[in-house]
């Protein structure tokens, strides 16, 4: 069985709460300090994108297990404008909002698994997993 919970991302304070909750869950599945820091940073990037570009949304956090291996899966979802060109959005230093353009590519590098689906006019869903 997996354990799942959903957190809202509607304000800057929510982004802070997402970071804190992801940190706690990383510790629960036994990640070391560096891996915790990497995954919390990835979560922070994705939560901020959900807020800034997606117009808000939520994140589902699940502790997953295959065999004896534990992991944490985060699914960020919004019903914002979506991304027309995902490859471009993933390119380092590409930004449409005056950022550094590192969030998506960085979150991918800081996770073990990364998956993005987006439909213009419908929304965006980004899933990341970090395994112990």
């Amino acid at each position, binding site marked *: 069985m997996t354990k799942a919970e959903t957190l809202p991302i509607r304000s800057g304070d929510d982004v802070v709460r997402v970071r804190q909750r992801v940190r706690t869950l990383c510790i629960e599945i036994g990640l070391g300090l560096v891996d915790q820091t990497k995954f919390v940073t990835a979560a922070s990037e994705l939560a901020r994108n959900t807020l800034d570009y997606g117009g808000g949304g939520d994140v589902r956090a699940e502790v997953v297990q295959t065999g004896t291996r534990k992991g944490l899966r985060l699914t960020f979802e919004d019903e914002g404008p979506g991304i027309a060109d995902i490859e471009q959005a993933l390119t380092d230093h590409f930004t449409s909002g005056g950022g*550094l353009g590192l969030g998506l590519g960085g979150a991918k590098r800081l996770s073990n698994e990364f998956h993005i689906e987006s439909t213009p006019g419908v929304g965006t869903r980004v899933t990341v997993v970090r395994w112990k």
Partner: protein
Amino acid sequence: MDRIPILKLGGALIVTIQVDMQDRLAIALEEDLSAMIARTGARGVLIEISALEIVDSFIGRMLVSIAAVSRVLDAETVVAGMRPAVAITLVELGLELTGIRTALNVERGMAIIQSRIAEEGEGHGGDWDRDES
């Protein structure tokens, strides 16, 4: 609105970031710092971040932006006390702290700024410490 206190010590301005920075606080800090550099003629800005558990692209952009503005105002920015796990993560994130010097701790950070002041002070008489109002 809350603001992050800025301390003046010698020719340097010192800021300790202890909270999870939000957008408005970051913008206010940038404005406060540039105003204070202009007013005091400070030659260095020391930003102490040992309390930060992560540095994401948002905080990174704030640091780079503070450094860029400070440089235009002839002050050098030193970031001190970054946690090792944060430093490792920054590399993988791809964030380069352009124009920013880093130091292990406040003492070393101050040493960098003081040596800059000492070097350049020989040229133009260290007037930074007399014009504080």
